[in-house]
C-alpha cells in the first residue's frame, strides 16, 4: 500500500488550512462553499463546529478527513498535504490517521459488533489474534463488552453509535472526525456518546473535530467554532 504520510512533528498544529477554496460544480453552476478559509486545530483539542445548514461544515470536515480535496489552497493534516495526494494515498492516509464517526453509524449490517470494529485493522499487518484482542479492548472502552457478537440490528441506536466509535478508535487514529454524531439519537443516548467523546479527548488524548447542530453537544467540546456561509467566526 502507498504510504505518503509522515508522523506529526512537535509544535505542528495537527490541522492547518491555508486559503482553502472549495467550489462545487453543479451542472453549469459553480457553488463556492469555502472561499479562502484559514484555520488551525492544535493537537489534543476537542472542537465543535456549529452553524446553519448549508454553511459548509461538512465540506470543511470532509477536507480535513481526506475524503475530498480543496479546489485551491492547502489542507495539511499531521504534516501531510492532502490536496497533493492521489486516491490511493488518501485511502492510506485515512486508514492510518483518521477515525470516522457518522451521524447514521454506518455499521455493516452483516457483520457482528466485534467484526465491525475489527474492519480498520484488516488494513494493518496485525495477526488475526491481535486484531481480535484490540477490537475487544475498543468495545470495552465504549462499554459494549457484552454485545461483542451482536449484529447491528440487535442493538439500540446509542449502542450502534458506540460500536462505531469503537471502530473509529481501534486503529489509534491521530484525529477523530464526527459529523452530527448525536443527530439520530435521543437526549440520553446522545449524552452517553458525548461523555464518551469527552473521555476519549481527556483520557486518551484524542484530537476531535465534531460538527453539530445541538448546542448541548457543542457545550461539551473545548472549543466552539461557528461557521456562516463558509466563513469561521
Amino acid at each position, binding site marked *: *500500500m502507498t504510504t505518503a504520510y509522515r508522523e506529526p512533528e512537535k509544535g505542528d498544529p495537527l490541522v492547518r488550512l491555508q486559503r482553502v477554496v472549495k467550489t462545487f460544480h453543479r451542472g453549469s453552476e459553480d457553488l463556492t462553499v469555502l472561499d479562502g478559509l484559514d484555520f488551525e486545530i492544535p493537537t489534543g483539542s476537542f472542537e465543535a463546529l456549529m452553524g446553519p445548514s448549508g454553511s459548509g461544515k461538512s465540506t470543511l470536515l470532509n477536507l480535513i478527513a481526506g475524503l475530498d480535496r480543496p479546489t485551491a489552497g492547502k489542507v495539511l493534516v499531521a504534516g501531510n498535504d492532502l490536496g497533493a495526494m492521489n486516491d490511493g494515498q488518501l*485511502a492510506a492516509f485515512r*486508514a*492510518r490517521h483518521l477515525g470516522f464517526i*457518522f451521524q*447514521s453509524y454506518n455499521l*455493516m449490517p452483516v457483520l457482528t459488533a466485534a467484526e465491525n470494529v475489527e474492519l480498520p485493522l484488516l*488494513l494493518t499487518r496485525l495477526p488475526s489474534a491481535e486484531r481480535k484482542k484490540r477490537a475487544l479492548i475498543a468495545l470495552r472502552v465504549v462499554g459494549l463488552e457484552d454485545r461483542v457478537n451482536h449484529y447491528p440490528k440487535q442493538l439500540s441506536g446509542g449502542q450502534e453509535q458506540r460500536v462505531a466509535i469503537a*471502530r473509529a478508535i481501534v486503529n489509534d487514529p491521530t484525529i477523530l472526525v464526527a459529523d452530527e454524531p448525536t443527530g439520530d439519537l435521543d437526549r440520553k443516548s446522545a449524552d452517553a456518546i458525548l461523555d464518551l467523546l469527552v473521555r476519549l479527548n481527556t483520557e486518551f488524548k484524542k484530537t476531535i473535530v465534531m460538527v453539530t447542530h445541538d448546542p448541548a453537544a457543542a457545550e461539551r467540546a473545548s472549543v466552539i467554532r461557528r461557521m456562516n456561509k463558509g466563513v469561521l467566526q
Partner: protein
Amino acid sequence: MVPLSYSVRNLRVRATTTLATALGVGLVVFVFASVLMLGEGITRTLGRAGSADVAVVLRDGADAEMSSSIELPAAGLIMNAPQVRRRADGRPDAVAESVVVIILDKLGTEGVSNVAVRGVTDDVLAFRPSVRVIAGRAPRPGSDECLLGASIRGRFRGLELGQSFEVKKNRRLTVVGIMADGGSSFESEVWIDRNVLAAAFGRESVVSSVRVRLASSGAFEALRSSLEGDRQLAVDVKRESVWYEEQSQGTSMFIKAIGLLVAVFFSVGAMIGAMITMHAAVASRQREIGTLRALGFSKKSILASFLFESVALSLLGGALGATASLAMGLVRFSIVNFASWSEIVFEFAPTPGILAASLAFAGAMGLFGGMFPAARAARMNVLDALRG
C-alpha cells in the same frame, strides 16, 4: 482486504435473489456438463464395439474399413503372425473381412440410405462371442443367406426376417437371422458370406480388414511394430477399442460443439442475471461501500470483494448444476451415429474433468457478470457513496 465473510453473508441475507440467480447459472452449467458427459458417453459406447485384446489391421492411411483394402496373401501373412492367438485346432484366431456400402429404400420415410454390408467368414460368430443370433438362425456358409443387425431391422425395404433384398442388381439375399451385440455398431450392419460379396462386387483378391486376437494383451506393441515395419505390407495396426473410439470422435465432437454453442448462448442470459443481481447489490450497499472507502479500503479491495461475491454466487449455481447433471448418468439417450447410419443408445458419462470444467465455467460467468457492477462499486466517489 474486505473480509470474505462480508460477501458470503450478504449472499445469505438476500437468499431468494441469490438462489434465483444461482439457479440461472446452474441451468447453464447443467446443459454444459450434460453435453460434455454425452460426448464422453458416445466415445465410450462406440468404443465398446471393440475389444482390447483384438487388433485391427487396415491399409496404411485408411481411416475406415470401407476405404481400406488388403491383398489376400498379405492378409494370410498378417493372420499368421506369431503374436496372434491360436485356436484349439491350431489355426490363428483371426478374421479377414470385406465391407461395402449399399443403398436401400428406407421404410416409413421417403428416400434411400446407406447400409453397411460386411462379408464374413464362417467363423465370425466364434470370433465375436458377444454377437448373438436373437431371432432365426445363423446363415449356412457359402449361401445367399444373411444375418441382419437388430437396430436396422425393419428400417429398410427387405431388411426383415424372412424377406430378401438386392445386394447388387439381380443378386438377391435372404435374411435368415437377426443378431444383437449390446448396442454396438455391428447391430447396424448386414453380414453376408465373404465369397458372395467378393463375387458380387468384384473383390475376389482383397479384403477390407484383418482382425486378430492377441496371444496376450502385451503382444500388441510387438505385432504393431513388426507389421507396420514391413514396408511391403503397408498397413496400420490399431487396438480395436482405440480404433472405435477414434471413429466416434467425429460424432462426439459434433454433439459437444452443438451443445457448447447452446451452453455459451444461454450463459449470456445467466451472466446478465448475475450482472443485474450484483448491480442491485452494489446499489443497495452504496453507503457501506462509501464507509469502507472512508475507513481506508482501496478501490481494488472493493472491486475484489464484489467480484468475489459474484463468483461465489455463480459457483453456488455451478455446484447445483453440476450435481443435477450427475443425475443424467441414469438416463439413456438414442441418436443417429453418423459413422454407421443407425441409431445407437448412449449414456451420459461424468468424469472429474467435466465437473471441474463445469465449475470453472460457472466461475467465469460470475467473473464476467460481476465485472461491471464491481467496477462501478470501486469507481464510486466516496462522498457520493456515503450519502447513499
